[in-house]
């Protein structure tokens, strides 16, 4: 697993010992590959670069088909903080994403540990149920859940999004279980022989070893909440003071008819934290993604 991850992240340079006649062909291949990759890289980067450029224009120039700002206006980013409810959206998004991440991890780790390392009757059934919940389109249970939260008077707030995270998240449980399976059971047996109870084994032995898996699961949850549009649309759209970034961005146009530069500045601000986090935690990401998909 670790070896694969190393290769995924940084492929070691394999020594090439080719005869001279082969060298020309290899060089041509090299050029062809890099040309394709560079062309694709430009295509992948263009939308982001274009947004950033738009966000630095005047609002008049942003309405034209120019790509390059005539004059640079980084103060647009200040303006979007002062003249729009963006700080408020940002705060709501942070509240949602941070609390949901912490609570999801706290409630999912024990369940994932039980599914991966404890033997009990109904374990397969429980695991299958977790998979089904994970695969279930959220729209299936939307109406009954909405009615339930409405009955408790909690629609219009972030509570319907946060409270469920107290009770585990199917994707998080699945991801953590896959990671915990890679920890050899001998470590746990050793702890048990030393007289550790199951909870102590989990907290003292498993948690430190599972840190990369927990980091990956936490990051995914944080990103999911940060990006979530359907949940906030469903529960908070009736009350603007509970709106998150996704919701705010989607409705910016009505509030600020022509200020494309501000809309794009807000859009850049919504994605910047994610990209920064990614650069610091690339390894966890790649590991998490690999865990969810590669075993056939």
């Amino acid at each position: 697993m670790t070896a694969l991850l190393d290769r995924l992240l940084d492929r070691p340079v394999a020594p090439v010992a080719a005869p001279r006649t082969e060298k020309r062909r290899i060089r041509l291949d090299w050029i062809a590959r890099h040309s394709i990759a560079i062309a694709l890289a430009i295509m992948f980067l263009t939308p982001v670069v274009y947004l950033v450029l738009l966000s630095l224009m005047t609002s008049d120039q942003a309405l034209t088909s120019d790509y390059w700002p005539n004059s640079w206006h980084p103060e647009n980013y200040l303006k979007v903080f002062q003249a729009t409810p963006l700080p408020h959206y940002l705060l709501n998004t942070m509240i949602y994403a941070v609390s949901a991440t912490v609570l999801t991890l706290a409630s999912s780790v024990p369940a994932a540990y039980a599914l991966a390392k404890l033997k009990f009757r109904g374990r397969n059934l429980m695991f299958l149920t977790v998979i089904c919940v994970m695969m279930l389109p959220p729209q299936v249970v939307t109406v009954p859940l909405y009615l339930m939260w409405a009955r408790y008077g909690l629609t219009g707030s972030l509570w319907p999004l946060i409270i469920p995270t107290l009770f585990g998240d199917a994707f998080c449980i699945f991801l953590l279980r896959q990671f915990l399976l890679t920890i050899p059971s001998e470590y746990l047996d050793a702890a048990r022989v030393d007289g550790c109870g199951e909870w102590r084994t989990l907290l003292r032995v498993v948690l430190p070893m599972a840190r990369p898996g927990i980091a990956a699961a936490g990051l995914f949850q944080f990103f999911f909440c940060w990006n979530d549009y359907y949940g906030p649309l469903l529960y908070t759209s009736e009350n603007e003071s509970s709106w998150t970034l996704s919701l705010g961005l989607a409705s910016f146009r009505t509030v600020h008819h022509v200020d494309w530069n501000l809309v794009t500045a807000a859009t850049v601000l919504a994605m910047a934290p994610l990209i920064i986090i990614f650069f610091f935690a690339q390894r966890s990401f790649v590991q998490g993604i690999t865990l969810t998909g590669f075993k056939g």
Partner: protein
Amino acid sequence: MGVRLRRGAITFSFLAPALIGIAAFFVYPLISAVYFSFTKFDLLSVPQWVGLDNYRRMADDPFLLQAVRNTLWMVAVFVPVRILGAIGLSMLLVQFKRGAGIYRTIFYLPALIPPVAATIAFVYLLKPGTGPVNHLLEMVGVDGPLWFNSPAWAKPSLVLLGLWGIGELMIIFLAAVLGVPESLYEAASLDGANAWHKFRSITLPTIRPVILFAAVTGVIYTLQYFDQAAVAGSIASGQATVGAGISQSFGYPEGSTFTYPLWLYTVGFRYSALGYANALAIALFAVALGVTVILLRRAKAFSGEES
């Protein structure tokens, strides 16, 4: 017996939060949805039993037909295009001995961007009048399409948007492709196999389970496709709103982006036909469950066994 009971209690203590969660946010709403699907009610009235009426209504609902068509279009086009794109990128990346890291990071980056932000970016990028894409096409003498403002091009535009965010699937395929033993390729080279041959007879069989995984998760993802379709419709039509109001711009232009989940949301939260919305939900559930069962029966990673 006492020890066993104690062990059971400890195991239960690990599982309790998740069990409550599954009961309260999965089993309970699912059973309610089944019951509600046989009733008629709105936010102000009490459910009234109407038998199979809601399911019969599905048979002649022109909007539902359109939504099903659009969703099937997305399943038929988006799912295979995504898989081919991800395999293509991963096959390109494994070729590099040096520099793969930077390309991989760039290809992955868009997958991080919030769907709402990514959709806004694409609507600007593809804007018919002033967008840079049509500007570029014009420079090479091509009359660019209307993209998100054209009934024929709106769904292909969404597919492009989806391809841009292909990073996660690419990493999954990259891991699978890197897992193929180098010795197999070397042996094939000695036998004089060319690149396509090697791909066909070595890479493809090894990554077949991953293709199945990608197909199933892709179909599930497409069945619940909501955010991008909703936001693209509302921004491109120029009437961005939220709440029940957003459903007014759903499907823009001319219903071409009206997917199944959008119709479900509209029925439930704009028309408050909650009984009918639940019938639509149960139909969606049946399809999603069927697709999931295919994966569960085929993929080892999902079995309860330790792997």
